[in-house]
């Protein structure tokens, strides 16, 4: 609670200081509205990060270091948490071939891209299937995204990538009644 509050205060102060004294804009990451489709026993959820990698990221994604993007999905009804899981998309550039390898833990797949835009679209997307039970009833779905501290081993440096998001953690929320078809 205190950590969330201090993160929000920090994000507010950073935004205010940049608004007042800097032409630097950083990124203003947001998660798109959650799209949900219901199968017989699986709930398919999809959301994507928007405006998250507009500035400052190209050189990092080209650095040859694995850049992960974390998502946490939580499904809960009033009193009970039915599903809580962390998913990670990551991208790694191979400087000898000029290709990015993107892995998406939610879909358990790995794809190679030569286009920066395509790589960003893949890294920014969370697409996952959740086994559900209709007796969960009315549920609240919450997806939160954040960036970790990444280690650049050849430079012997660790950098907190949240700096580039102005310490903001984008969140998307939605409510569904799983007793009825969506």
């Amino acid at each position, binding site marked *: 609670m205190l950590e969330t509050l201090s993160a929000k205060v920090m994000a507010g102060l950073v935004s205010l200081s*940049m608004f007042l004294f800097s032409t630097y804009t950083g990124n203003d990451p947001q998660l798109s509205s959650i799209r949900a489709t219901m199968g017989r026993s699986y709930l398919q959820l999809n959301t994507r990060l928007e405006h998250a990698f507009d500035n400052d990221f190209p*050189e*990092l994604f080209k650095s040859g270091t694995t850049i992960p993007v974390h998502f946490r999905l939580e499904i809960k009804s009033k009193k009970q948490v039915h599903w809580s899981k962390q998913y990670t998309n990551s991208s790694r550039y191979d400087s000898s071939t*000029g290709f990015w390898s993107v892995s998406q833990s939610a879909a358990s797949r790995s794809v190679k891209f030569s286009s920066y835009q395509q790589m960003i679209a893949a890294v920014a997307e969370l697409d996952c299937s959740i086994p559900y039970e209709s007796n969960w009833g009315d549920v609240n779905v919450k997806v939160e995204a954040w960036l970790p501290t990444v280690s650049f081993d050849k430079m012997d440096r660790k950098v907190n990538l949240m700096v580039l998001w102005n310490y903001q953690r984008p969140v998307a929320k939605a409510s569904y009644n799983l007793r009825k078809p969506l």
Partner: protein
Amino acid sequence: MKFIYHPGLRSWIIMLFVVVSIGGLVLLNSFLQNQQRQIEKDLAKLNFAEELREFHFTQPEDSLRARQIMDTFSQAKGVMSFTLSRSRMYSSFFLLLIIVASIVVFMILLSRIINPLRELQKATDEVRRGNFSVHLPETGIHEIKLLKSSFNTMGRELEAIQKRLLVAEKEMIWKDLSRVLAHEIKNPLTPIQLAIQRLEERYQDDPETVIKILPDSIAVIQQEIENLRLLAQDFSNYARVTQARKELFDPAQSIEEICRSYRDNRKLDLDLEPDHQINFDPTHFYQIITNILQNAMDASEPDKPIAISLTHERDFVIISIRDQGSGIDAEDLHRIFEPYFSRKSKGTGLGLALVKKLCEINGAIPRVKSKLNEGSEFILIIEEAP
């Protein structure tokens, strides 16, 4: 109403602080941000890794080595780019923190300077009102402590001087009063004594004829006793005046009535605007006019007329009593309303002092203009009743 803002010391200091300190920091930040942006642009142009990839190495170890160089270069470029972005963000963030912190520190320091100055200003006002016992706590920064200490010392010294002055003034008043009383009592006593001596001598020399001079002597004695009574009444009047019983009346009518009894002996030129109302104690008004009129008659020859006028200016009634008498010496002009001050051979010096006192308690303002050997003009400024 036109409002004109006069910036005080605090406003000037705040303006100076904002312009020099905060303005300087913002300019410096702007310069550094521009430099960082330029470095970012230059960094983006370095495409060493892409260029190296175009090379075709024949030896596998060369290829491996080239790959390691590309990786190191790419990581260095990524870290540099990140560091630049971070420094641009943090420089503005720390600038905000520095500005907030410096404003807080500045306001605290300013309050430690301005608040004692305000205390001093209030204390000075107290001293101006005559309260010399005001004492300031000797706290605050060193210079302010010294200033307060000096102020307290000044207050103590002024209080001591005031006490000494009060004692000296009381002594002087008693001396003046004693002199005036002795003089005024002695004046009627001499004729009384002479009348009694005359009666006594006649009674010893020729008792049969005492009856002939008796009425004259009794008349002298009675006259002088009356003078003594009037003298006592003057002092009593001056001491008794404390408050006014104000009434609305037309001052022109009142002046007409007062002048009626004097017109048989003196020429009075009246020029009185009618239909003005003043809120004034009528008895006090009578005393003021008769005192000034009596002074004017005493100061001028019997054939010289005395001009009395009543006009109005804005919300005030202006009453002027002008004589063509001996006038008042410029040196004495500022003292004529003081008690016991008189240049006349007869008089207690209480007449004009009484006029001033009565004017004060009725809210009127007495003024005097005079030229030696040309005459004097007494002016009363009284607020007209709405």
